[in-house]
């Protein structure tokens, strides 16, 4: 016998079936297209931004994100359920597509049938299992959302509609199959190739054929209308993420990671800088708001949210989205809220985890730029004072610029012209007592390796990173231009930093302003020296935990080298729960180093408590801001005696073998 089935069995092949079916389908597709065209009008409110270069790589990334569910799967529980649901549903979509192709094209026009024989067997069993998996996963997600109700997960009408609709479509599909099989396939060997349908058919076996036929016909139309409703609803509900999340991956920022857009401040035609209303954001920023599924993964990882500050990256995106629809010319900053805007540490935890590729940090910085450049507003007077100090003395601490190089007196540094590397210690390495110790350790390591080190001394200025992240693009560009002129004036070939903020800024942001020499972070540089055999460190085993700074970790993907360095020096790392890509900010990023933390609880205390929970007495860092915050945090948490924060360079210098 031929393994196949009759498409349109029982519902009829004639015009009576096809005409309304095609008509309804056309209506659903029209509603879908109309809905997206309306959304498109919203995206077009945004400013232009180039996101179509390297289209093939972008398409590959989009397909990878969608089909392999790579980003969704980074959170295992709900991620797995979503991925399997997606795969199940996707197979059903393909299966339905094959039926359409055969029934409405190849068979209709050329009498060609391909859903038969072995292919039909595979088709049938695959779709049956896909449907079952989709139902099980959807039920799991249903229980999570409506029964377990994880904190922070908002459930709206959209979610109810999605769950209800999808579940009904899947279940009616099996009931229709069961009814058909109860009449046509029970007892036949073909039934085994539809195991779920067979199970349903067996349940219906006692029913009269008339009832089965009526039920089949009724449910077939019901199922079709629900499926078309699903299609039509896509642009109007959160279902739109089926399209927008994937497309967002296509339009993703292709890096360098975390590099901000350099504003053209001399542009005479620019009436405004930064974002005061949604139309000041880019179209991708507005598109992002449609890609968001409110999965709250960003919110779960936001250090500001975790310490009761009025910032949730998810809510920022939601507010921008509402504003774009309702008041595109309205005040965006009021809608998002100043306290939310200023609370961000630009740690990038939100952006890193976002399965929809949403770019939160850039939007927040754009709003800050507007507040600072157009309104002269800061989160507090202390920040304004720090800005003025940066203008006058080139450091936010307000210390005399001429003493910037005093820390290195007597260390035997070389002149920039005769050096192997220029060491850029930054403001904290130059002026802050605790971080001067780190700078000295770094110099000691270099000198032990025979590297001639120079500094710019009083000619060095703040790299401008805290000012920039606070929105003060003008001050940043002023400081950057002076630093670049100085560095180029000495013909420097290579710069090493001990501050990841300096590293990220010099290595990425300064490129736009003309800096072209090599920049290296101190863990990378020291690892090279060790690999070349120029540096020998060993001091027996010691226990520690290691904190990934946001700017070495998430911003620059440097996770392994610092760990290898620590292990080379004898360190046994007890990892904190939040490590690597999910590391928890120290609180000082995003220019927050300049600001008092007045809202909620202290981020740094929360972080040192996580470090203390590892039981290791040593907290290793790679960033002067982190170190400063941890020194403060251990005092605040009253664990000064049991937890010592140190920079990697310090432990290496202590264990230096000469």
């Amino acid at each position, binding site marked *: 016998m031929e393994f196949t089935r009759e498409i349109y069995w029982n519902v009829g092949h004639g015009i009576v079936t096809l005409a309304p079916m095609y008509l309804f389908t056309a209506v659903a597709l029209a509603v879908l297209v109309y809905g997206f065209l309306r959304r498109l009008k919203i995206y077009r409110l945004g400013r232009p931004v180039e996101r179509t270069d390297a289209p093939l790589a972008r398409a590959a990334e989009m397909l990878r994100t969608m089909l392999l569910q790579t980003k969704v799967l980074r959170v295992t529980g709900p991620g797995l359920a979503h991925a399997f649901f997606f795969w199940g549903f996707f197979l059903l979509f393909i299966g339905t597509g094959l039926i359409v192709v055969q029934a409405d094209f190849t068979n209709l026009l050329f009498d060609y049938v391909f859903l038969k024989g072995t292919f039909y067997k595979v088709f049938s069993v695959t779709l049956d299992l896909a449907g079952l998996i989709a139902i099980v996963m959807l039920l799991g997600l249903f229980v999570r959302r409506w029964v377990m109700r994880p904190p922070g997960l908002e459930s709206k009408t959209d979610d109810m509609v999605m769950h209800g609709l999808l579940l009904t479509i899947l279940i009616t599909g099996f009931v229709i199959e069961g009814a058909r099989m109860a009449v046509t396939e029970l007892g036949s060997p073909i039934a085994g190739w539809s195991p779920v349908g067979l199970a349903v058919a067996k349940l219906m076996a006692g029913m009269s054929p008339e009832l089965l036929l009526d039920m089949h016909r009724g449910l077939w139309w019901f199922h079709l209308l629900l499926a078309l409703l699903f299609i039509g609803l896509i642009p109007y509900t959160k279902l739109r993420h089926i399209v927008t999340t994937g497309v967002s991956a296509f339009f993703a920022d292709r890096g360098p990671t975390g590099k901000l857009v350099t504003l053209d*401040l*001399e542009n005479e035609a620019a009436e405004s*800088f930064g974002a005061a209303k949604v139309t000041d954001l880019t179209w991708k920023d507005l598109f992002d708001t449609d890609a968001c599924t409110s999965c709250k993964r960003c919110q779960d990882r936001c250090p500001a949210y975790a310490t009761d500050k009025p910032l949730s990256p998810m809510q920022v995106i939601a507010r921008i989205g509402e504003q774009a629809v309702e008041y595109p010319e309205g005040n965006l900053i009021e809608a998002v809220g100043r306290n939310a805007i200023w609370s961000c540490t630009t740690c990038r935890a939100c952006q890193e985890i976002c399965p929809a590729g949403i770019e939160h940090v850039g939007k927040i910085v754009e709003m800050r730029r507007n507040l*600072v*450049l*157009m*309104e*002269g*507003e*800061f989160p507090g*007077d202390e920040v*304004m004072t720090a*800005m*003025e100090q940066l*203008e*006058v*003395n*080139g450091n936010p601490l*307000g*210390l*005399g*610029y*001429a*003493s910037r190089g005093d820390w290195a007196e007597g260390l035997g540094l070389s002149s920039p012209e005769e050096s192997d590397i220029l060491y850029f210690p930054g403001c904290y390495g130059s002026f802050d007592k605790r971080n001067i110790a780190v700078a000295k350790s770094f110099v000691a390591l270099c000198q032990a390796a025979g590297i001639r080190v120079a500094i710019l001394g*009083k000619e060095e200025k703040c790299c401008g990173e805290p000012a920039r992240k606070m929105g003060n*693009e*003008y001050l940043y560009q002023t400081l950057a231009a002076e630093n670049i002129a100085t560095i180029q004036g000495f013909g420097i070939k290579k710069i090493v930093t001990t501050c990841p903020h300096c590293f990220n800024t010099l290595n990425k942001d300064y490129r736009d302003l003309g800096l072209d020499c090599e920049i290296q972070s101190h863990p990378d540089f020291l690892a090279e020296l060790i690999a070349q055999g120029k540096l020998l460190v060993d001091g027996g085993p010691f226990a520690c935990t290691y904190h990934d700074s946001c700017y070495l970790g998430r911003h620059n993907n440097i996770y392994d080298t610092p760990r290898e360095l620590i292990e080379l020096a004898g360190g046994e790392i007890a990892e904190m729960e939040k490590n690597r890509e999910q590391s928890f900010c120290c609180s000082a990023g995003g220019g927050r180093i300049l600001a008092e933390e007045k809202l909620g609880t202290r981020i740094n205390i929360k972080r040192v408590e996580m470090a203390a929970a590892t039981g290791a007495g040593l907290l290793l860092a790679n960033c002067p801001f982190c170190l400063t915050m941890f020194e403060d945090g251990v005092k605040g948490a009253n664990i000064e005696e049991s937890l010592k924060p140190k920079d990697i360079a310090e432990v290496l210098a202590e264990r230096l073998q000469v």
Partner: protein
Amino acid sequence: MKLLVCIKQVPDMESKFKIGTDGWYDREGLAWRMNEYDEYGVEQAVQLKEQTGADLTVLCLGPEQVKETMKKALAMGCDRGVHIADDQSHLKDPYEIASIIAEFARDKNFDLIFTGMQSQDRASAQVGVMVAELMGLPAVTTIVGFAYADGKVTVKRELEGGVKATVEVAPPVLVTCQLGLNTPRYPTLPNIMKAKKKELLSIPAADLHKASGLQETAKIEFPAKKGGGVFLEGEVSTIADRLIGILKEKTAVLA
């Protein structure tokens, strides 16, 4: 209405000072900024300009480099700048400086002149009042509150012992500004850009320099290092007793 605000460029007080060879501090290796008290003057003048639509001139005496500081005042909202070019201004005494300013301002019909209460470097607190005296204007010093309405200026003066006086005065008048008057604004980017194009007139000091100084700097030296702080250690109750003893002995706070 015409307003004048007089500002001075001073070294940042965190700078490392060295005594120079010309009877004043060495000007090398210092970071420069607007005198803090003058910032309050600029802010108040800009607020008054915004309130009344007045025309606001900022004046600064000194070498070429003071133009940087004047640009900040222009970015904060002053309409035009008058730079009295003088490479030796740091060696002039308050009377000479006041004479130069008065000479400039005499025929300009300013309704209000703002100056800082004193400069952070020389701290004589004389220039403002002497300008008023030389121009025959009333002067109100150390103001911490300012209001202008119905052609009258109402200011709050800070007196000794936390007492404040309210003074009402009709323009023309000169006021000297004290900490607490206002919070100086941070210039916005469009205003910084506009400031670059504002009129900045330079007048050689010699053109206005008609009086000679009345003071002579005899000597300049760092204060002798005296004993630093005192650490009280031990039990809280004994520390408290010792603190009360010191306060009674050395201060009047418990009197």
